[in-house]
């Protein structure tokens, strides 16, 4: 029973990782820019969820899309104001800019919202299901299924729609895309917006069962990088698989080897895997 519970917890945790990483992988893959502020985008989305509920009394069904919309705008803004100017520069300039953005967002939040930990009331979206001893929180389940839906949605958008293929075209060859009449800037702004919107959905959903604080994004960020890298930059389904794999590995290694070493297990496996397969688990050669 315990093993089953561990597996279930691991799967759901993995779904959260995937959820957390989907926006990151989209932006990363589309424009080869590492968004160091990604964790802080999630943090903002979590605060949006928190304040919409506590101040405006909005229900999750309203504030999740709201977070997506607001983050979409933020993503577009960040693209036009910052990323556009550094993305074709050296990799280091990109790192510098998004790192500066991360500091700015995180500590503005600290200043505006205070460092206190807050959280949405537990049971906002239903309680706990007991399936013959296997106990699952509704909020986790919702997050898990949303991760699946979001992944599927983004994947379909990128592979099956005209818009998606245009975005991919720009990401593969900006100049060539321009030659065939796709204006790159709006496309890339859109990619940033979409990535940020996915992040918004993720953050609002995670807020249903996780505490919120200005530093919260940081606790996920390293694992999000690992998830994206394992999944192959830009591959949303890859991130889902990688996230779930990491969640399950963490869950079991925490139980068997002790929780202090669970990240060590994941990181060690990650490093070894890269040494053997330098393009990531699902990445193209």
């Amino acid at each position: 029973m315990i093993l089953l519970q561990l597996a279930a917890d691991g799967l759901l945790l993995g779904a959260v990782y995937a959820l957390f990483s989907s926006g990151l992988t989209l932006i990363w893959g589309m424009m080869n820019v590492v968004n160091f502020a990604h964790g802080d985008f999630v943090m903002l989305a979590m605060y949006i969820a928190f304040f919409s509920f506590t101040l405006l009394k909005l229900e999750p069904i309203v504030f999740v899309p709201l977070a997506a919309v607001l983050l979409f705008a933020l993503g577009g803004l960040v693209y036009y104001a910052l990323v556009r100017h550094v993305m074709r520069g050296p990799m280091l300039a990109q790192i510098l800019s998004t790192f500066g953005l991360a500091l700015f967002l995180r500590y503005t939040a600290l200043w505006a919202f205070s460092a206190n930990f807050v959280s949405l009331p537990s049971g906002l979206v239903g309680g706990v299901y007991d399936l013959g001893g296997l106990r699952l929180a509704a909020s986790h389940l919702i997050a898990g299924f949303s991760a699946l839906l979001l992944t599927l949605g983004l994947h379909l958008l990128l592979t099956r729609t005209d818009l998606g293929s245009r975005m991919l075209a720009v990401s593969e060859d900006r100049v060539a895309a321009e030659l065939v009449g796709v204006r790159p800037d709006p496309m890339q702004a859109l990619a940033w917006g979409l990535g940020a919107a996915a992040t918004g959905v993720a953050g609002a959903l995670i807020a249903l069962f996780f505490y919120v604080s200005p530093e919260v994004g940081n606790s996920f960020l390293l694992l999000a990088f690992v998830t994206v890298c394992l999944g192959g930059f830009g591959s949303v389904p890859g991130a889902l698989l990688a996230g779930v794999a990491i969640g399950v590995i963490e869950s079991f290694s925490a139980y068997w080897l002790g929780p202090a070493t669970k990240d060590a297990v994941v990181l060690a496996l990650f490093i070894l895997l890269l040494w053997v397969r330098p393009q990531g688990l699902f990445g193209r050669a």
Partner: protein
Amino acid sequence: MKALFPRAGFAAGALLLFAAPFLTANPFYQRVAALTLLAAISASAWNVIGGYAGQVSFGHSVYFGIGAYAALLAYAKLGWPPIAGLPFGIVASFALSIVVGLPSFRLRGHYFSMATIAIAALAGILVTNWDFVGGAIGVMGPARARSFADLLFRSSLPYYAIFLCVLAILLLFTRLLQKSRMGFYLRAIGSDERVAQSLGVPVRRYKLYALLISGAFTSIAGTLYAVMVGFVDPNSGFGILISVNMVVMAALGGAGTLFGPLIGAAILVPLGEATNALWGARGIAYVAYGVIIMLLARFSPGGLAELGRFIVKGWRRRAA
């Protein structure tokens, strides 16, 4: 480089570096000056592999941590003055470069960066759970100086002098390297590995050389930090922020240029201290810090060295 630092300017700069902390009797400014040099050492060390050879490592804190732990463990376990741990740190950094660095060189671009982040994070976790080296609690240096060799000074000036010597050696070394075949090879690797290799550059070997040098000097920086601060724990030795700071400073000043990391450190360290002194109490030091970094990246993506070169060039053109 020649255009930006003509001989006279260079001499003036060097003189200023020597004299800077003596111009003020203020101990706090002196400490900031010393910390600036310390940061410049690690950023310049990072620059060898990250700037010249273009292998953007986010895991250099691992070398910093090794150096810092070597110093304080030499004290805690053997009763030696912390500085005596320096050679141990260097040797350990060599071992790490060979065992962990070499296999990572197959990785390109972001994959390399991510692997190095993971390696440093892993090292941090291992040290946290390893009681022999103090675990999470960390290791303390001597509480009070037993002899001069403990290098515990109330004033920051002696530290400044030591750091300046190390930095001078490192920069001299980098300058020689820059002019030599190795410097060309590293820059070629940083620019395009495939082409470099086709021109006969043994890429992996040269990357390893660069990492050995870079890691060793970063470990020296760690040792010096531990000697000065007298304490290290997993977060202050292996924390990701330490790596990020090296990268940010080098990138800001100009990665792959001789004085870029020094310039970056000379801006960011005092800026960090100033924002903390002015607004730290309100907790918004980092807001200002973040905005400034963003603006710099936005308006000078190649680092300040590039901006400087640009200005000098424009100025010359007008003069001519």
